[in-house]
């Protein structure tokens, strides 16, 4: 049954949101330009109603799309492409914004929320600011319109409410137009992570927040209030800087936890595309503060605020137009929206430039030369450095764009981004970061008043001295030898110490002013954390067995990866490391279940416990319980011991997802105070393939007699007559014998129970028993009542194995702690600026 209603409703809401946004923009524009007060009030009321209707429509789109995803209406392409019936509830939310349309929607949603807040709090600015807000909303809404303009065969936007049969030309729809698939494609397993639930909304709130200062700035230019816009825009810029920064960092943290490249930042074009506007936003924030304090840098602030918004649109264009397709690992593919995105970007860029150009001469400037001994000078230098930093990332990231542009002029260009991005960007960004740290560290001495040469000298000298003393201690206690890293540590320490000094003096006067100092201390800690965790990340899984894993592979691989057979400890970087077996994750309980403790059922998502299942001493399931698991996920229990003490138990994961194309490893991290131990699976046994058993070895044994199977000691403990076997009927004159064979594993005993069944007096059935973990298969081949002996067939195969790579990431917590402090600083400053306005 097709659920047409919800899709039609959704589409109606999309059209409504577009139309209301256009109308609202018009009403507020009228309100701005009308001088008659009563008429103006009327237009404002119209605008408000329009924007509220628009917001309701946006909520309506969200609700419709969510209904489709939540109820698994696979007749809709969006649900089919991004969800599946087995997806846990919290990840349904992630499906919502996995697709381009959903992420545009998320962006619109936040802007609607911000618009409503501004509408009711900014009396004087309401009309012009909301004109710009609604205009942007109209552009965004047009991205999900999915309307074909008649006569022009021009498709405007891509609707999330398109039916599957309209999106995919599968022959089945010709045979059966009402066909609805039973199952969807599902969510990329890499995105099934809690960070992917909260990271996109945070990032898009950050995106939306860049519009606020832009809208105020444009309104200011338009209304000739050239400097008044700074005051209301400043707290929003602070909020935007914090939220966008938080969103970026969450992405980094997600990469650290989920992707197995062993880091948090890869300088991928998609990462760069949002890093650049953030840098400029931070620069604009500083020049706006300068303006508030000393009436300088107004023009620079205007340029930067516009640049932030334009760069954000540019980054949206880069990541969503498909232009980066050959340059990035994770850019969206083209939805046919690139033309529309280009118009969106160019419209606001040109409009802003024209408006500012017209007003440029009227914008007041301060003519006096700023002194080197003023705070403004240092902030200005810092902002300039931040801009250069952004420029350095922007230039190479845009290489695919240059090729396209040259193509328009008929020139064939084949330039590609630098092959090793991490090396390329890091070598520049590192020195810029050092410059920023030194500038802002010194700039902080000017916090209170203008100080003269002598005072500055004293401050710089004492701070430098303390820095060097602490640096000496670090040098002795750690292994920092690289001169470049030494410079980075010194710069980090310098900014921390100078800001601790500022913090101490500010705190006494008014703790509410401590935001800036705290944020800067956070930056210093981040620098030091990044330096240690990336520069001194150490591979600990050194292959010290002398065994070549794979002679085709480079020496690096053979050196850095460790092959672990089950229950065979190895030593690694001062640890004893042991692979304890494959684990499964139950869906409704936290903990892990051993693969051998459960039997499969016809439904891959359900298993039956074949014994009581314990995890960390707690009983998870009783024997015979049926419960749900995630069949895609296999965890590998890796135990690390120092002496007899268990240092860590890690569960790195491998996800097998055919729909999403193969094997995806994710690391597990053991977090320590001074360092993280980061482990991921490089390769594992292929579970799909039939195991290769060795030749059968036949032996004759008596009950209680020891024998060896695959190097394990084993013994028949009991002989038992069985009366029921699942899947087989045992009649009265049939006979069935079961042996209970104990096999002594490294940590525990395993029991194999092969059976010998005689049916109808002549038919013999042999039921072998496998213990996969030990690589053992035992078959009861014959019974000799005359000698009390049994003939056993023993098969062995390679034991379970896994190849892991483990890295130690020293002092990565300094980085996370620094980011936390940065955020706290931001929020303190923001609260202060918001209150200042009231």
């Amino acid at each position, binding site marked *: 049954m097709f659920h047409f209603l919800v899709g039609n409703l959704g589409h109606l809401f999309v059209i409504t949101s577009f139309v209301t946004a256009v109308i609202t923009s018009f009403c507020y524009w009228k309100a701005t330009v009308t001088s008659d007060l009563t008429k103006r009030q009327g237009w404002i009321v119209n605008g408000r109603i329009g924007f509220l209707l628009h917001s309701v429509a946006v909520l309506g789109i969200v609700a419709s799309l969510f209904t489709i995803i939540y109820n698994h209406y696979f007749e809709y*392409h969006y649900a089919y492409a991004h969800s599946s019936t087995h997806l846990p509830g919290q990840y349904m939310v992630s499906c919502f914004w996995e697709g381009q349309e959903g992420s545009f929607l998320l962006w619109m949603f936040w802007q609607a929320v911000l618009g409503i807040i501004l509408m009711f709090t900014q009396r004087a600015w309401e009309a012009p600011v909301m004109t710009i807000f609604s205009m942007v909303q109209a552009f965004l809404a047009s991205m999900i319109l999915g309307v074909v303009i008649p006569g022009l065969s021009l498709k405007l936007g891509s609707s999330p409410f398109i039916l599957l049969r309209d999106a*995919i030309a599968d022959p089945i729809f010709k045979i059966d137009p009402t066909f609805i698939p039973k199952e969807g494609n599902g969510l990329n397993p890499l995105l099934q992570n809690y960070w992917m639930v909260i990271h996109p909304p945070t990032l898009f709130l950050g995106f939306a927040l860049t519009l606020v200062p832009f809208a105020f700035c444009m309104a200011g230019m338009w209304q000739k209030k050239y400097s008044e816009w700074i005051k209301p825009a400043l707290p929003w810029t602070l909020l935007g800087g914090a939220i966008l920064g938080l969103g970026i960092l969450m992405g980094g943290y997600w990469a650290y936890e989920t992707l197995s490249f062993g880091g948090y930042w890869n300088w991928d074009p998609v990462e760069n595309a949002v890093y650049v506007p953030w840098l400029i936003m931070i620069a604009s924030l500083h020049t706006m503060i300068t303006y508030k304090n000393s009436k300088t840098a107004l023009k620079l602030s205007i340029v930067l605020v516009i640049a932030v918004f334009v760069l954000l649109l540019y980054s949206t264009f880069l990541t969503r137009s498909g232009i980066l397709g050959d340059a990035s*690992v994770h850019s969206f593919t083209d939805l046919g929206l690139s033309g529309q995105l280009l118009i969106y970007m160019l419209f606001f860029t040109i409009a802003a430039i024209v408006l500012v150009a017209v007003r440029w001469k009227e914008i007041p400037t301060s003519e006096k030369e700023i002194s080197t001994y003023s705070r403004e000078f240092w902030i200005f230098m810092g902002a300039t450095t931040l801009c250069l930093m952004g*420029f350095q990332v922007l230039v190479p990231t845009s290489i695919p764009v240059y090729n396209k542009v040259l193509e328009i002029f008929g020139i064939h260009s*084949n330039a*590609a981004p630098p092959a090793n991005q991490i090396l390329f960007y890091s070598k520049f960004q590192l020195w810029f970061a050092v410059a920023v740290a030194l500038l802002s560290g010194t700039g902080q001495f000017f916090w209170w008043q203008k100080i003269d040469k002598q005072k500055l000298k004293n401050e710089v000298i004492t701070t430098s001295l303390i820095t060097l003393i602490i640096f000496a201690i670090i040098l002795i206690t750690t292994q920092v030898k690289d001169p470049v890293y030494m410079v980075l540590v010194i710069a980090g320490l310098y900014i921390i110490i100078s800001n601790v000094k500022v913090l101490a003096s500010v705190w006494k006067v008014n703790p509410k002013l401590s935001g800036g100092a705290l944020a800067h201390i956070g930056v210093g800690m981040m620098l030091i954390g990044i330096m240690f965790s990336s520069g001194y990340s150490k591979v600990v899984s050194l292959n010290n067995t002398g065994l070549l894993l794979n002679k085709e*592979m480079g020496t690096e691989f053979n050196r850095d990866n460790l092959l672990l057979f089950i229950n065979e400890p190895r030593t690694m970087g001062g640890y004893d490391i042991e692979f304890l077996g494959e684990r499964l994750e139950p869906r409704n309980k936290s903990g892990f279940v051993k693969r051998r403790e459960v039997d499969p059922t016809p439904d891959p998502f359900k298993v039956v416990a074949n014994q009581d299942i314990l995890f960390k001493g707690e009983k998870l399931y009783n024997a015979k319980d049926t419960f749900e698991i995630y069949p895609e996920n296999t965890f590998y229990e890796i135990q690390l011991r120092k002496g007899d003490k268990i240092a860590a138990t890690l569960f790195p994961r491998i996800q097998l997802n055919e729909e999403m*194309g*193969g094997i995806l490893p994710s690391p597990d991290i053991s977090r320590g105070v001074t360092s993280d131990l980061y482990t991921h699976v490089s*390769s594992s046994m292929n579970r799909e393939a039939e195991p290769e058993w060795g030749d059968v070895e036949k032996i004759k044994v008596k009950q209680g007699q020891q024998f060896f199977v695959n190097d394990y000691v084993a013994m028949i403990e009991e002989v038992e007559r069985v009366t029921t076997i699942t899947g087989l009927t045992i009649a009265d004159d049939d006979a069935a014998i079961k042996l209970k064979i104990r096999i002594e594993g490294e940590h525990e005993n395993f029991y194999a129970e092969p059976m010998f069944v005689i049916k109808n007096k002549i038919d013999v059935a042999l039921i072998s028993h496998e213990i996969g973990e030990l690589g053992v298969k035992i078959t009861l081949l014959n019974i000799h009542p005359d000698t009390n002996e049994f003939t056993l067939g023993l098969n062995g195969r390679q034991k379970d194995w896994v190849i892991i790579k483990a890295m130690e990431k020293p002092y990565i917590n300094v980085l996370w702690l620094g980011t936390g402090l940065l955020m706290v600083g931001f929020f303190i400053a923001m609260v202060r600026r918001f209150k200042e306005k009231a």
Partner: protein
Amino acid sequence: MKKSHIIGLVVIAIAIAIIISTAGDASSYVTFDQAYQMASTGNKGSIHVVGELKKDFRGEITGLEKSPDNLSFSFLLLDENKKVQKVYYNEPMPPDFTRSEKVVVIGSYRGDLFVADKILLKCPSKYQEQKLNAGV
């Protein structure tokens, strides 16, 4: 000269330095023949080659060889000039590899073998997907 002019000059100088260094470090998209030529003339730099996986008449990928332990693999890539080249990649096969419509390999020639340091995939967008493949 005013201080702001000096600062302006320094900024412009740095910006030019950035652009020049980017041009110097930028790689390029080439064909296998060009890449081979570069390697044989002693140019050791990494370059990008864009291509498609070689497929037989039934549309099935041919020439894909995985190492026994799945830790590395090699494949045949057709560049823009339809030249076929064996490419070796020293990592497990990336997800979605066989479904990709375009493959970008970044690396260089070692002898007659192209060794990729990095592989980028361009996967078909869901809209271009013409077949249903789940739960049908």
